[in-house]
């Protein structure tokens, strides 16, 4: 069966959608079709990919207006008619399907990394800290992130308001912060950062990030909301603030 792909070509200043026809073969994913077009019809078509296994997070794009990994989107799951493939919207367009996602790496750098607590005498004797499964489970979910930035792309705070990149780190970094904050052996306090710099308050928990995550990380409910609750403990809950003043306990 022949399928038409309507692919974005060009740059920000000079770009348009162009049609290409490919033969849809069984099990073909959108990235296969792009490669076929690249090989046979448009050798200068720019796209980014690496693993073709949904694990490197490079091939993010918007397929029929929805953010997806092109390597994990089978063509036979898409409705009949032309398939529109465009670059992600939230990051500066370089060419065709390629965007510059380096803003994400700059955000990551400013987050205080894992800061281990000193060993208890018992742990020191053993020379190691053993983490229990129940503590692992909660943070391991966040470790599945492949940094495809699909969540950053669909987050309306960043997508529709580019100026918010100054004040909001985006869902990918919310789960990074959650992962570190919930770690039993981490000693850093990132809650002031969560409130002031990461700007968790900008998130209005409309959950587009959770819906799009190819690793099925429950970003909003397991990561962002717990951070919001921790922030409330510290900054918005009058009773807890009084309790802290009186007892010195958190």
């Amino acid at each position, binding site marked *: 069966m022949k399928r038409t792909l309507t692919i974005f070509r060009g740059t920000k200043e000079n770009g348009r959608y162009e049609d290409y026809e490919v033969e849809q073969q069984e099990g073909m994913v959108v990235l296969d079709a792009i490669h076929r077009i690249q090989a046979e019809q448009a050798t200068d078509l720019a796209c980014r990919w690496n693993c073709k296994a949904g694990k490197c997070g490079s091939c993010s794009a918007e397929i029929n207006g929805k953010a997806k990994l092109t390597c994990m989107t089978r063509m036979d799951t898409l409705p009949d008619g032309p398939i529109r493939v465009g670059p992600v919207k939230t990051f500066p367009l370089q060419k065709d399907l390629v965007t510059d996602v380096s803003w994400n790496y700059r955000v990551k750098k400013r987050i205080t990394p894992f800061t281990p607590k000193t060993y208890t005498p018992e742990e020191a004797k053993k020379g190691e800290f053993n983490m229990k499964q129940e503590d692992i489970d909660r943070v391991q979910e966040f470790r599945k992130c492949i940094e495809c930035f699909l969540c950053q792309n669909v987050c309306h705070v960043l997508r529709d308001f580019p100026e918010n990149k100054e004040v909001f780190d985006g869902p990918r970094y919310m789960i990074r912060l959650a992962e570190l904050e919930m770690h*039993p052996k981490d000693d850093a306090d990132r809650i002031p950062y969560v409130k002031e710099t990461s700007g968790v308050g900008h998130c*209005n928990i*409309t959950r587009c990030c959770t819906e799009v995550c190819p690793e099925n990380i429950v970003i909003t409910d397991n990561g962002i*909301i*717990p951070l919001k609750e921790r922030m409330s403990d510290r900054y918005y809950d009058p009773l807890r603030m009084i309790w802290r003043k009186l007892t010195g306990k958190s």
Partner: protein
Amino acid sequence: MAETRSSPAHPRGFFQTFRKDAWWSYPLFTVIVLGAFGVYSLWAAYTGIAGAEAFHYLDHGRDYLSPFYSPCITDACAEGPLAGTITGVTVVTPALFVMWMPLGLRATCYYYRKAYYRAFFASPVACSVDEPRKKYSGEAAFPFVLQNLHRYFLYLALLFPPFLLYDAWLAFQVNGSFAVTAVALVMLANALLLTGFTFGCHALRHWVGGRLNCFSCSNVAKGRYGLWRGVTWFNKHHGKWAWVSLVWVGLTDAYIRAVIHFGPSIDPILFGGA
């Protein structure tokens, strides 16, 4: 270089998107259901309960109280553990004294926030659909920063399930002896659904254990981990609990009103009764 919003690769403007699926179905559903519930519940709370004796339905050996009126706390209420707590107020119905608490829980609930920010504020109306406003600060600024006080509505709402269960218990008696009526079952389901909704609250999940960084470090922490897991079980489907319990509370009220109006023929006794 400042990033501009225009991109030749993406449509821009009110509700513009390249999505081909029915992205409008969720916000439309939300507008209809939340809108209908809002109008109905305000009507139900303001108008009192026509034909009921002091807000309870006490005919034909039954005792039913609409969940909107529970717990009934003014001296105009027929009975109940808190009847007469507030005296001398006749200009408003007893519902208005209590209803704001569960409504406040829902209004600030982390799930409903998604629903109404999408449907009523178009912020965003659906994922990857262009948002019709120039600036956005979400819950980082007034008024939505007040959502951070959601936990206080939780504390108040936790008081309600026992009263609703008590009302259901009274409903399971006809002429003083145990009986299963259709309304009693509906009221019991209502109490359980509301409990399930409340027990799945994110603020509760945080409170009972989520705020700990180590679940295994002490016996108390281990106990709290158990509680956290329990709340997590309800929390996983908090959105579904939210919808079903919302519709059910309206139906429960409507059913009781219908029984008052049409008589017990529409409230069969399924078991027991004198």
